[in-house]
């Protein structure tokens, strides 16, 4: 098999490299492994959720092997090394995950692009590194991540914890940025898929057909890099790169129709046998009770299981309903969030409805980043339950914004009473920007990054994202610069002329002619 990916080197060098890499990969094959999986879940009876997970583990001996990459993508390895990154999380999402209808996703992500990074302890000039990193990532994924500048970057104190092992988890080493307006397109998918050892040729990734992915209700790609321990004592570590795709397809077109579907009908392709490089490759399906799946699959608990290494030829998995499904019943989510913009004129505000359906109090971390041009006023913050009583945040941190600088960053720990709906509102004034700082299509408005709720869970955390909010701010007249300069200077000239007259001339009587 070949482990070569395009390097841009001359042909003869490629051949030479092939020999070298083959040898190296043979000798280090124990040190890295690739796992792929596909989980399919039917949501109610209207949508189907497919979650692709590709994990590359690399157990390097002493230090990151700077030259020889086998399964681990070189482009990510180089970025991680150059910018001294301990942990990297990147997601791009099109659409909004409906927590109330679909339950929790396997990987939560906000609308648009989100990047958060832990730098290694002792990294110097973190802000410069962060700028360089977002530019490098921008180039790698053909996305406008270079627009993540100091105006959208924050270092939250408690919302983010490292998912793996890091030397220091101080929030000065953390940078988080989001672009809610960023769309997920084919041009982002292609470089993302190129990072996979088998591209989109084998295994679950064979289903990742860009045109069918774009015909979905929700699509999210993610890339997560971190270091993990081998054992509890953490005597040695290895690095892990996880790549996710979450996609939700509509399966039901009309109510009186059986919502039968197959992988070929939603992805336009059958499922291919596993990637030859994969150590494990399998599919889990969580079907509703009255659905038949062909071909017959092994049952493991409530799930159907298929090992793709045992497949010999492309297979199409079909889902057939035995009887017409009833109208969908929404899943009751433990915690829900719904945010919207309030206010008229210059006054504005963000209101978030946080729902707790659990039978016990839940402690959550609420994070809201607001750009500087919306002047958030922390003294207007209110948190009320549906019974009208105020909730005092257990902990609150508010970093005010600077004009043309860092954004407002509100982070607080709240205890949501059981079976309650909590209304959180924060007022802001719409600010005014100079005409050159407005983006193209200024009247479209600006997106505020979605609010993020972090709920501590037994294994890591669960995140619930709100909506990306669109806010209009007053715009100047873009056709006016010369007129304004002329008019204001005229008034200045009137003042100067009058005062010049006053101070340099004196009265004299002259005959009237």
């Amino acid at each position, binding site marked *: 098999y070949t482990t070569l990916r395009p390097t841009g080197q001359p042909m003869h060098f490629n051949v030479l490299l092939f020999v070298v890499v083959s040898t190296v990969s043979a000798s280090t094959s124990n040190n890295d492994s690739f796992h792929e999986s596909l989980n399919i879940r039917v949501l109610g009876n209207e949508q189907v959720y497919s979650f692709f997970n590709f994990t590359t583990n690399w157990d390097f001996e002493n230090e990151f092997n700077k030259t020889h990459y086998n399964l681990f993508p070189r482009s990510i390895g180089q970025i991680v090394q150059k910018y001294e990154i301990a942990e990297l999380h990147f997601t791009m999402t099109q659409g909004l995950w409906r927590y109330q209808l679909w339950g929790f996703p396997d990987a939560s992500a906000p609308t648009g692009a989100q990047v958060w990074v832990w730098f290694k302890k002792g990294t110097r000039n973190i802000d410069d590194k962060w700028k360089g990193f977002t530019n490098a990532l921008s180039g790698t994924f053909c996305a406008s991540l270079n627009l993540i500048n100091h105006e959208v970057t924050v270092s939250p104190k408690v919302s983010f914890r490292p998912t793996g092992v890091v030397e220091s988890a101080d929030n000065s080493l953390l940078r988080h940025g989001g672009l809610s307006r960023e769309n997920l397109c084919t041009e982002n998918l292609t470089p993302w898929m190129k990072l996979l050892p088998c591209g989109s040729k084998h295994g679950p990734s064979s289903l990742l057909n860009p045109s069918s992915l774009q015909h979905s209700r929700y699509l999210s790609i993610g890339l997560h890099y971190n270091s993990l321990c081998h054992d509890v004592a953490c005597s040695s570590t290895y690095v892990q790169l996880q790549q996710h795709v979450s996609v939700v397809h509509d399966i039901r077109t009309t109510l009186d129709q059986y919502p039968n579907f197959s992988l070929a009908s939603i992805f336009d392709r059958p499922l291919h046998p596993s990637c030859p490089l994969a150590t494990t490759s399998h599919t889990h399906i969580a079907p509703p009770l009255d659905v038949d799946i062909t071909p017959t699959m092994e049952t493991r608990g409530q799930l159907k299981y298929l090992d793709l290494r045992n497949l010999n030829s492309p297979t199409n998995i079909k889902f057939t309903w035995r009887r017409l499904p009833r109208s969908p019943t929404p899943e009751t989510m433990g915690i829900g969030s719904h945010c919207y913009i309030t206010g*008229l*004129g*210059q*006054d504005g505000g963000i209101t978030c409805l946080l729902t707790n359906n659990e039978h016990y109090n839940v402690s959550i971390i609420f994070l809201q980043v607001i750009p*500087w041009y919306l*002047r958030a*006023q*922390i*003294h207007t913050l209110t948190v009320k339950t549906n019974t009208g009583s105020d909730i005092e945040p257990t902990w*609150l*941190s*508010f*970093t*005010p*914004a*600077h*004009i*043309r*600088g860092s954004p*407002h960053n509100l982070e607080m720990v709240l205890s949501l009473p059981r079976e309650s709906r909590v209304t959180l509102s924060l007022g802001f004034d719409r*600010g*005014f*920007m*100079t*005409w*050159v700082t407005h983006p193209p299509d200024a009247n479209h408005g600006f997106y505020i990054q979605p609010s993020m709720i972090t709920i501590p869970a037994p294994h890591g955390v669960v995140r619930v994202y709100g909506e990306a909010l669109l806010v209009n701010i*007053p*715009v*100047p*007249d873009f056709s*006016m*610069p010369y007129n*304004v*300069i002329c*008019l*204001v200077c005229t*008034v*200045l000239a*009137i*003042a*100067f002329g*009058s*005062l*010049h*007259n*006053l*101070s*340099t*001339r*004196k*009265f*004299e*009587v*002259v*005959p*009237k002619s």
Partner: protein
Amino acid sequence: MTNLFVIISCGVLLRTWLLQLKDLTKWISKRPEVSTPQTSWSRLVEGFVISKQTGNVHSGDSYHGSTLLSAFLFHLQALSPLLVPAVFIACDVIAAISLHNFAKKFLQKELDDQNSHKSKLSKGVDSILLKLHHLENVPTLVALIYLFNPFTIVTCISQSSVAFNNLFLALYVAHLMSGSSIATTLFLALSTYETFYPVQLIIVAMLCQHKYQKEGNRNAAKPLFCFIFWLLILFLVSYLREGSLESIFSHYKFILTVPDQTPNIGIFWYFFTEIFNHFQTFFLFVFQINALFFFVPLSIKLRSHPICLMFILTCIISTFKSYPCVGDATLWISMLPLWSHTFKYQRQPLIVTVMLLTTTILCPVMWHMWIVAHSANANFYFAASLAYTTSHIFIMTNTVMAYLKWHYHIRKGVRLNLDGSTEKAVLRLMN
């Protein structure tokens, strides 16, 4: 005195009543003509909350006033929330009394001056002379105009911190002729510490020291040294409170570099919204020099009329400062009656007054159309604010020109053809 008492009582009652109308006060305090980023009460409250969080009232870009004022109001509010509006009302009352006393003293001096030079005055100028009835009516009128000017009332009920600046300046002018250069410069230093631009008024204190003091106490350098002393004291106190110079000077940086382009009735905001980045620094200098430089030629020209100089400098500051609001204009508007005996020399007083009134009404209308109704754009508000500035320019130059013309006439006579010829003659400005 009874009149003054009635005026003050009515002013206090009116303010107390208006402060009860929460919707009105809330609406008014959000007007960009009333509350600027530098003076807004809601920003000050935000600063209180932020200083509880971060320990520094200036962290972030919420509050841009001075350290000491925020500390004073913070402690005041901690004592009792009712004290704050009470202090704002007290500010207006004290300012009105100060202006009343100032007007009385100034007109008395002018009258004395006029009477002592009676022999030098031209014949037949009785009709334009300053009279005793001016002395009786004008001071009450000044207090009346100050307390019942809508600009002052909205400033008071919106709790815009410009009320304090007005109080300091009113106390400063009240002490100008009393002789105490220590008190004069203290209030000037407080005002300078607060808003920077009044620094140029020190020249008035120096000229007054020279003109109105007794023989032997006419050293014009004395107020200058006192002023510097008070400023240093104020900076020292705020340094001891804040622990760093950076946060003390951050609000001067905010005044001088004008980073906030929130609309107001001045000339800075739209210009710097629309200017090309390349020219920004250059025009920043042009605009700030415009606000700060005129005191040089004017103090040479008006060196024998320091109060007139004070009047026009106050006008210039309130018109050309980086974040002006209507509250800034109240001080000089209330001083207009001081020149009532020269009003007949005003040019187009009707047009200019109507211009000021119209733009005052148009500004909120245009704002509503632009920001709330979205049926107009920024240019509408800009036009109204530009006309407001222009009316200021006309009023201040007309008033001073009228005063100078009047001065010329009482010295040279009302009949213009001085050589006795029958030919008609006019007064012209000549080089």
